[in-house]
């Protein structure tokens, strides 16, 4: 799973200017709705932004598995345990698919993993918050996965072939994540008074990170227009957030639950959802490393890396060279 909230890098002024003839050909192909494949010529900025986007998406899948993985041993009942194990395994699988897609653009997996471990690369902000109770896990499984689906379905219609193919498989698996999350969520919502309180508590904790999930309202820069034109960015953050609120707020309200935002309402005229100030300063604080769990998540990831090193080295063939995946 992965949100928007993605901050594209600034245009690289040191990059080589693109050959105008090839650029025109490339843009015409995108306008015709055709996909770009790894062996095609592509603009320098297109490649650079896509590597960042797909890599960050991959890291988010890995880091997103941490808060839920922590609950496998405590999931209530055998069926929930099985479902959670399967979901966490899927998320790690998503990361593998996405790393492969990013690699077709020329950055090796080892470099991506190192950039995550060193703290250089970013991942979705939402995973820097703790899952304190089982109810948090149901909110993640239902609402965070739902939000991720909105984003991933949009991205799957983008222009880069390998990313679209990976997302197609991912979206298929996400529908199970959403369903099992909704099931666990409804179980608490229709349960005892104590269970409902626990769930309401979790919703209160996750409301702001969920609003943050799609990122701050987009700027109207030439740069972001170009990314839209190249179908790297498929919808504005606000569009996706609105689509999510429209589909899922009613599903929470109908269970008699509430959101901790008195300003949250849909404008019947415009069809747009209005919400209270979500404090974007907090969003930037967390993405720059100062969230409640940033250090813990990174630490857990580093621990896994260290513990796995010996076996990777034992089965490694030193003669081997990395090859870029073909498609």
């Amino acid at each position, binding site marked *: 799973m992965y949100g928007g909230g993605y901050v594209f890098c600034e245009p690289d002024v040191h990059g080589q200017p693109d050959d105008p003839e090839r650029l025109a050909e490339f843009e015409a192909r995108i306008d015709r709705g055709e996909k770009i*494949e790894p*062996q*095609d010529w592509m603009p320098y900025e297109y490649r650079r932004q896509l590597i960042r986007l797909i890599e960050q998406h991959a890291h988010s899948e890995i880091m997103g598995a*941490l*808060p839920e*993985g*922590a609950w496998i*041993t*405590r999931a209530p009942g055998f069926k929930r345990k099985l479902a959670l194990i399967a979901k966490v*395994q899927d998320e790690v*699988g998503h990361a*593998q*698919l996405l790393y*492969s897609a990013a*690699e077709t653009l020329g950055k*090796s*997996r*080892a470099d991506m*993993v*190192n950039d995550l*471990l*060193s703290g250089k690369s970013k991942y979705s902000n939402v995973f820097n918050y*703790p*899952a*304190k109770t089982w109810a948090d896990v149901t909110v993640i499984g239902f609402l965070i996965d739902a939000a991720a689906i909105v984003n991933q379905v949009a991205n799957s219609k983008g222009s880069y072939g390998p990313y679209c*193919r*990976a997302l197609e*498989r991912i979206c298929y*698996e996400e529908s199970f994540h959403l369903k099992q999350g909704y099931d666990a969520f409804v179980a608490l919502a229709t349960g005892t008074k104590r269970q409902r309180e626990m769930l309401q508590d979790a919703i209160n904790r996750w409301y702001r990170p969920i609003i943050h999930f799609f990122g701050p309202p987009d700027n109207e820069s030439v740069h972001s227009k170009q990314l839209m034109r190249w179908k790297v960015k498929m919808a504005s953050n606000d569009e996706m957030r609105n689509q999510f609120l429209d589909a899922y707020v009613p599903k929470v309200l109908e269970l008699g639950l509430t959101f901790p935002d008195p300003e949250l309402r849909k404008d019947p005229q415009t069809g747009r959802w209005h919400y209270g100030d979500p404090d974007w300063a907090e969003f930037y604080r967390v993405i720059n490393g100062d969230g409640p769990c940033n*250090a*813990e998540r990174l*630490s*857990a990831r*580093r*621990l896994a*890396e*260290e513990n796995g*090193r010996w076996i*990777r*080295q034992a*089965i*490694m*063939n030193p003669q*081997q*060279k*990395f*090859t*870029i*995946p*073909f*498609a």
Partner: protein
Amino acid sequence: METADRHLLSTSVDPRLQRVQRHATEFHLLEQPEEWQTFEVFHQRRRGEHHVHVGSVHAPDAEMALVFAKEQFARRQQCASLWVVASAHIHSLGYQNEDMFATTTEKTYREASGYRLRHKIQAYKQSVQHESNS
């Protein structure tokens, strides 16, 4: 870093992390991390169907590639057989030659849909009927 790590892990809500007693070694990145080969994966859903390319995996050898491919591409979907082949061993015509597949020549003579007979038969039948009526 290390002291900070230990403190963090013991205050974590994750029981797996609470159990961890880290040794006083600092985490270090490998300068030359393990680089594995990539293998392309082909998946056959059912006997009788084609093997279809579904993606790639990293592995130190073909045997491990099959293990990873099974985990990654066959853990949910029906699967009768899997192939892996080193990415470096794929030969392709490449997109720079894409236009050789396009053609301005009429090619319907190669296709079943290029042979339409029903309207001729219909017209023939009608003319025969017309004759017999008159």
